[in-house]
Each structure stands twice: as structure tokens, then as C-alpha cells.
């Protein structure tokens, strides 16, 4: 007892920290790092699955060669996936933030709308989405939305604004894929709402007494208090878009996995996720640089 006190509270806290994460470290080694190392080994081997294990034959860099130089499809798919990511990401972020603000304000039928906007979480994150899309009639949703965009001719309307082509194309692509984007917003809305609700209401009351407008209230209270949640949502959205079932690279890797050439699928996934990992860490680093010093 005396000895503990001598070592100071910081040492005790360090002990506590290790106590909290120790079982997780064991889990990481057994269920995460070990399989990860295995998949790195697969990259340099030709695999043939046997009962209970995978037989390996060392082939140096053949798998890399197959994926990047022999396979005509992969590099295109990689570029398509990354581009898709670049324009879906901001759209999802903005739409879900706006919807969360609306859903968090008080109005009649709030419970109903919240339950409604929760549907994408249940349906799109799982098997139901693909099962329903497999049925012929539900494909009418897609044609439905395309018909609507034909009627209003979004492309021409936006072109008449005289914006630069890059921007108008961006807006057009958002409008035409608004369906997909709505389906990706479910969890982001939930995270945003829970973040907004953990802002103490006393702050708003104080601001009201001081006579702030809604606009000032948003930028001076809501946004700074939401920075932490925003970082969470940014990371989650990136990962969610990349690992979704209809991602092109993932689809191809999955196809190779079904053909039992784990080496090539490992190469695809690793190269894809190294690029993505670099992007994620760059964005979260920028985020910390811009916001964290100010508000976190």
C-alpha cells in the first residue's frame, strides 16, 4: 500500500490503462494480427486449400504481376472505386448533417420521421438490400428516379447556371445518385443526432439570454461541440463507402476468393487499402490540424 503511494498516481493510472486493454491486446494478437500476417504470406504464395489448412507454394511476386499487369480490369476498377469514393464522401456527409439537424429540432411527428430515417440502417447494412434488389420489381426505384431526372432534365437546368463544368457535373452526379446516397446516410444521422444530444442544453439557454441568432448559435455552439462527432462520422463514412458490398474492387477480390486464389485477392485488398489508409490518415490529420487545436 505504501509502495503504491510512493509511485504516484500517474504510475497507478498507467497500470489501470493496461488493465483495461490487456484482454483486448490478447484478442488483437490472436484474432487480428495473426490472420493479418497470414494474409501477407498468402500474397507471395500460390494457395490451394486443403481440409483444415491452406497449402502454400512460394511464387515470389507472381501474384502482384498477375493483378497489376496481366489482369486488364483491376487498375480501372481501382481508379473507379477511388473516384466514386471522392464524390460520394462529401455528399453523404453534408446530407446526413442537414437531415440530423432537422430531425433533432422539435416538430410534430419527430418520432415517426426518426424511425423512418432509421430504415436505411436496418435495410441497407444487411442482406435485405441485396435480396430485395434481386427481385425484378424493386428495380423500378432506380428507373423511377432516372425518369424523374429526365422530366426535370437536371443536366440542362444545372448547365444553364453557367457554372464550371466540373462543378455542374458534380451536382448532376449527386442528383442522379441521391437515391444511393440516401441509403448510405442512416448511421451517420444516428451518430450526428447522438452527438447533438450530448451538448448540454445550458449552453443554448445562456446563448438565448445573451440574444444570439440561430446562425450564431449554430457556428458558435453546435459546430464546435460537434467536432469530435464529426471526426467519428468522417472516419466511419470513409470506411463504410469503401467496404460496401457494391464496391468494384471488393467485388473482384471476392470473386477471386471464391475461385480460391487467396493470394491474388490478398494483393488486391492490400493495395486498395494501403491507398485508402493513406487517404484516411491524411484527412484525419488535416482534421486535427484545422479543428482540434481550436476546439478539442
Amino acid at each position, binding site marked *: 500500500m505504501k509502495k503504491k503511494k510512493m509511485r504516484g498516481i500517474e504510475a497507478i493510472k*498507467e497500470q489501470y490503462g493496461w488493465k483495461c*486493454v490487456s484482454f483486448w491486446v490478447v484478442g488483437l494478437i490472436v484474432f487480428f494480427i495473426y*490472420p493479418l500476417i497470414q494474409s501477407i504470406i498468402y500474397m507471395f504464395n500460390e494457395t490451394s486449400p486443403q481440409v*483444415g489448412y491452406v497449402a502454400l507454394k512460394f511464387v515470389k511476386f507472381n501474384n502482384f504481376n498477375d493483378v497489376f499487369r496481366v489482369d486488364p480490369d483491376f487498375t480501372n476498377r481501382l481508379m473507379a472505386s477511388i473516384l466514386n469514393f471522392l464524390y460520394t464522401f462529401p455528399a453523404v456527409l453534408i446530407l446526413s448533417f442537414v*437531415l440530423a439537424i432537422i430531425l433533432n429540432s422539435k416538430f410534430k411527428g419527430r418520432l415517426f420521421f426518426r424511425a423512418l430515417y432509421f430504415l436505411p440502417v436496418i*435495410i441497407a447494412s444487411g442482406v435485405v438490400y441485396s435480396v430485395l434488389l434481386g427481385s425484378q420489381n424493386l428495380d423500378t426505384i432506380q428507373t423511377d428516379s432516372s425518369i424523374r431526372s429526365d422530366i426535370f432534365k437536371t443536366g440542362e437546368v444545372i448547365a444553364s447556371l453557367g457554372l464550371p463544368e466540373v462543378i455542374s457535373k458534380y451536382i448532376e452526379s449527386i442528383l442522379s445518385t441521391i437515391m444511393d446516397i440516401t441509403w448510405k446516410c442512416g448511421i451517420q444521422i444516428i451518430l450526428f443526432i447522438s452527438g447533438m444530444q450530448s451538448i448540454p442544453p445550458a449552453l443554448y439557454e445562456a446563448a438565448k439570454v445573451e440574444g444570439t441568432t440561430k446562425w450564431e448559435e449554430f457556428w458558435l455552439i453546435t459546430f464546435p461541440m460537434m467536432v469530435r462527432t464529426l471526426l467519428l462520422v468522417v472516419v466511419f463514412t470513409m*470506411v463504410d463507402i469503401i467496404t460496401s458490398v457494391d464496391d468494384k474492387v*471488393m467485388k473482384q477480390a471476392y470473386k477471386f476468393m471464391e475461385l480460391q486464389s487467396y493470394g491474388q485477392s490478398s494483393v488486391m485488398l492490400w493495395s486498395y487499402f494501403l491507398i485508402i489508409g493513406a487517404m484516411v490518415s491524411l484527412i484525419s490529420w488535416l482534421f486535427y490540424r484545422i479543428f482540434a487545436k481550436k476546439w478539442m
Partner: protein
Amino acid sequence: MKRKISFPDKDVIISRLKKINYKRKGVAFLAALLKYVVLASIGYLVLYPLVYMVSFSIRPYSDYIDPAIYWIPKHLSNIQFSNAQKVIDFIPSIKNSLIFEVLSAFIEVITCSIVAYGMARFKFRGKGILTVLLFAMIILPEQMIIIPKMINYSNLDFLGIIRLTNKIFGTNIKISILNTGFAFWLPSLFGVGLKAGIIIFIYMQFYKGLPKELEEAAWIDGANLTQTYLRISLPSSSVVLATVIILSVIWHWNDYYLAVMYTSKAESMPIAVKIAQMQTSLQTIGIWNGPYHVGARCAACLAFVAPMLVMYIILQRKFVQSIDRVGITG
């Protein structure tokens, strides 16, 4: 010189105020209208599949071919549900889902909270590496490590202990946890279950936002780790707890990719796997295509989605609407 200040009449003031009031009311009304229009128009996109599922799962065959019927059928029948029951066998598979998936979701909620508390609150050696590993866990997909993981599970060897005992005692023990609940529970128990990375991250962001003062006071009063965790941090995290429970349960309930890898026997399959395989299993009982095919799938999906919807509505009433951050004053 005295200057006379002229006030407008009382009536004029009142009428001006009324005008301003009307203007404000008009703006507020327009804003509310806009709000409802936005919510309803996006809500329509979201609601469409659910209405579709309900409508197609309650109509008999005669109503499928009737061109006059679009949404609301004239007759009700349970033929779609009974067809779905034939291939899915709802009660055992829902039981499997509850035992395997939902239970491991709750285990995950508890263990990840402890890990995140340690990561967010304490400084210790090796934290940097663990943070990198956490990000790797979030970013890297399950597909990358599923094959080695499956091989691990089919021949479970925890840190080489079993291999060692086999060598020493000359025995030949092999433990396979595939097709059992342990394939789902074990990773959750060690905080590396389904999407555990993002759940730990959600908790961490929340715990970092909690003020430290309460805990500091508790440390000084001589509280230990369990006491501060159970009495201070956990009670004030009801918001994040509700969020995490909802997300974790839904992800587990919906998860099909891992479940299809871990279970190969029909009697140990969760409902998500059976729904994913419906297309072929419907064909084996003789329903090839057309209305019955669509209807049965819709019925099964409805039964699959309904419990989650109910859970969300109950939980959000209980937790999300009555939040107070315990013991913290601004």
C-alpha cells in the same frame, strides 16, 4: 428649447407589431413547410421498400395478376409467409440469431466500453501502437482476414497452447468452434468482434468528451478503477450506450458474411444466412420464379426487419429522448 417628441398612436404601434408578428409567423411557417417537404420527399425514397415488402407479402396469387391493384390488395392471405416458413423455418433460425448474434453483440458492447475507457482516459506505454492497430481494425475489411480466421477456428489453438500440450503428452486434441456459438462469442469477448474497431472508436470519442473533474475527484477520494468506471463513467454514458447497443445489435443481426463462413449446418444457421440463400432454397421446394418467389422473399425480409424496427423505437424512446448528463453542470 424643448423639442416635442411625437409618439405614434397606440393603434399604429399595435398594427405595426402585428405586421412584424405576421411576417415572423409567415417565415416560420415557410421554414416548417420546407422542413416537412424535405423530410417527406427523402422519406419517400426510404419508405418505398418497406411499403413494397408489406404490400407484396400479404397478397394472394390472384391479386398479383390483377392489374388494377398497385399497392393495396383486395384479399389478404398468409400464403407468402407460409412459403417463407417452409424454407426458412423462422423460430429455430431466429433463436439461433438471438443466441449467436445478439448475445455476442451485447458482449461486444460491454468489452469495447472497457477497452475504450482505458484508451481514452489513461496514458500508458504502447498506446501509440494500439491506436494504430485500432485504426487498422477500422479500415481493413473482414474479407482480408476471413480465410486465416476460419482455419484458426476450425483448429482452435490459443497462442499455441494446445499444440504444446499435444507435443508434451502425445495426445491429439483438435478443437473446432465452427458451427458453435463460440465462433461468434470469443472474438466479441476479446473486443475484436464484428466492427469492434468502430465501436471502440465511438466510445473513445465520447469518453474523451466527458469532463475529467469528476473522476479526478474520485481518484483523490481513493476510488479504484472499477469504482470510477462503474459509478461515474458508465452512468453518464447513456446516450452513447443507446447508440452503440442499437448499432451493434443491428450489425450483428444483419451480418451475413461472417455467419455464412462460420456456420455450415442448417440447424445452426442464423436467419440472415437463410434469407441470403432463399433464392436457391425456394427453387428446391419448387417455387421457381414469379409472384410467389417475390412474395415469399418479401415476407421473409419483413419478418427479418421487424424486430430491429421495434427495438429501435423502444430504445430511442427510453434512452435518446431523456438524456441528461449526470452530475455535470455547464
